[in-house]
């Protein structure tokens, strides 16, 4: 019953809003406020996208007119490139780690830190700090932490009585090392989203459950998590698209090395497309990435829609 009433209320809300946009009074602000964002969006998002799509069918080194049409050759080159598979694999690992480690960790911290008090506020700020750091700065900081000669890691190793590997120079350890940095960097962001959601849960609901003798874990499982569903939906979406576009932490940390083992799709694009001045090749990578992101977005909406209907 409750869901029906909210549904109707939302429906009338939309109708009212729509009617308001139609009347002439709101047309003026629309004409004033829409063009700037529309122009910016077109110039900085749509046009570059169209450009990249165009490049991807040409061989072009960035100089002079684009004339050498090569059809789908760039796409074939990308798919057959010896390092593309690694880049895709790494990007998928980042997605998986984001969803399976980062978000649960963020949720756990959010539930623990959703109360209001000074000490909790301080903790929350500390957890959120990494997210406010510039990516490149974070990458450089961790490069020093991991440095096998002067870093924090060998000191830690000494204290534990073992010799730590040079993680960023090791084909195996480099991926876990990067995942740790990513989790450290971004879980605070998701934690904040979750905290905002948790704080909007009416206290009475939790209070009532507690009076009924519902256990703490069950309150989390059956009340809190379901009630912040929309926050989770947003978080998951950010986590996936962010993971697919990961770039600026990798460059200062490893630059894709050792032996190309830590490239993501975007660092692959930058290394082999931009720096090598093969802009057609780079364009093809970006188009493939764009398609992947669009598919993820559409599939995600479809899945959510289906879940909602059930």
């Amino acid at each position: 019953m409750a869901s029906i009433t909210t549904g109707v209320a939302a429906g009338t809300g939309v109708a009212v809003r729509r009617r308001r946009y139609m009347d002439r009074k709101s047309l003026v602000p629309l004409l004033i406020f829409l063009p700037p964002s529309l122009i910016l969006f077109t110039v900085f998002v749509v046009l570059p996208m169209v450009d990249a799509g165009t490049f991807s069918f040409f061989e072009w080194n960035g100089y002079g007119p684009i004339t050498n049409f090569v059809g789908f050759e760039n796409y074939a080159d990308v798919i057959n490139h010896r390092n593309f598979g690694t880049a895709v694999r790494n990007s998928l690992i980042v997605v998986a780690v984001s969803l399976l480690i980062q978000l649960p960790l963020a949720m756990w911290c959010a539930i623990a830190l959703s109360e209001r008090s000074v000490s909790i506020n301080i903790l929350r700020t500390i957890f959120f700090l990494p997210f406010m750091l510039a990516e490149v700065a974070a990458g450089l900081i961790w490069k020093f932490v991991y440095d096998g000669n002067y870093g924090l890691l060998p000191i830690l190793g000494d204290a534990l009585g073992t010799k730590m590997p040079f993680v960023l120079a090791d084909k195996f350890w480099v991926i876990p090392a990067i995942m740790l940095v990513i989790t450290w960097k971004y879980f605070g962001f998701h934690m904040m989203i979750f905290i905002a959601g948790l704080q909007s849960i009416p206290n009475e609901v939790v209070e009532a459950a507690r009076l009924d003798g519902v256990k703490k874990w069950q309150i989390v499982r059956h009340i809190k998590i379901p009630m912040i569903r929309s926050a989770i939906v947003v978080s998951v979406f950010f986590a996936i698209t962010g993971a697919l576009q990961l770039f600026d932490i990798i460059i200062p940390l490893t630059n894709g090395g050792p032996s190309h083992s830590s490239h993501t799709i975007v660092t692959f694009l930058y290394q082999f497309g931009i720096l090598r001045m093969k802009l057609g090749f780079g364009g093809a990578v970006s188009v493939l990435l764009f398609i992947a992101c669009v598919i993820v977005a559409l599939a995600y909406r479809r899945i959510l829609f289906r879940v909602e209907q059930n």
Partner: protein
Amino acid sequence: MKRIALAAMLGLMALAPVQAQTVVKYLNIASIPDEVKLMTEAVAEYEAANPGVKIELPFLENEAFKAKLTTLLQSADAPDVFHSWGGGVFYEQAKAGVLRPIEGVLSQEAKDAQGTAGVAAFTAPDGHIYGIARDVAEVVLWYNKALFTQAGVDPESLKTWDGFLAAVQKFKDAGITPLAMGGKDKWPAHFWWSKLVVRLAGQDGFNAAARGEGDGFAGEDFVKAGQFFLQLAQLDPWQEGFQAATYGDASGYFGDGKAAMHLMGDWDYGAMKDNSATKQGIPDDQLGILPFPTIDGGKGDPTDTLGGLSGYLFSKNASDDAVKFIEWYNAKPVQSRFANAGYYIPIVSGAADGMTNPFKVLVAQDINKAHWHALFFDQALGPAVGGVVNDVSADLAANAISAEDAAQQVKEAVDDAAN
């Protein structure tokens, strides 16, 4: 009426200096403050002597410069003059028509002063001269005399490749890192491959491969270069974690006296000090330069060197004044200041005569008597092929690729670029 005349006069006065003033923008990559000071002083002198010309010195950091230049040259904001390492990147720019041929403006005097190598370096395949050469650099095998004594290695024994490998093993046995290597940046690794190719294939072999003739870079000499490189890599000669080390890290490692040798450009003399923990680096009397080991049966000339020959290029809209300024700036009186201060080795004849730094003097002599001064391969071959050379070199240093595969990858990149 009077007022109008006055206004017109004021207007003319305001216009006059604008009309007479030509602005020359010289985009450079000089980052050392004292070097920049020398540059601005020279510019001030020139402006005082040529009131109609104003020189601007916009600066971009090395990597940003490479990344931005392509776009910049095709924009309305293109610099008149800019730094260039020559080679494949320069040829692309010339082919794209973003450069100005200057043979009509360049004086015979300025041409002669650069020498034939200098003029050739900035002559594009189309036969036009687009730039002026400024300086030369050489990749040399720096070594730490104290560590050689400590491990009981005689520098003389490193003259041949086998002797070199034996010495590397001796350092390993003595618990000393034989070689410093900035593997993350990759280009330091490509010096090894390049030096081996210079020794094994020589000038003719390299040029033929670069043109894609025969087996190209998959040919015997290039596979051999990979095999020699792997012989070295299999001894695990680099410092631990070298694959995560940048050039700066490796340079500091050598400067701190932790590695016995470092194959690096002559600029590492200053960089090694700057990157070391103490900022002092290895003292001059403990530092030495070894010739790169010779290889039996190699087709290269023993005097061949590897390094740079960089200079200035002129963009499409550069004025005659821009060329005149660089001619003046690149002549002996100004260039000798940079030589004396040890920033680089000017190519202009006579400018390097006053150099006192023994290492720079040695390098200048090396290049002077070289049969072939090979340009850095990653520059000479252009960004696409050069990038692959860097890739496979880093992989060879890590012992992560076979010599055949490395050679094949470079060949494919050349074939790909030729299409």
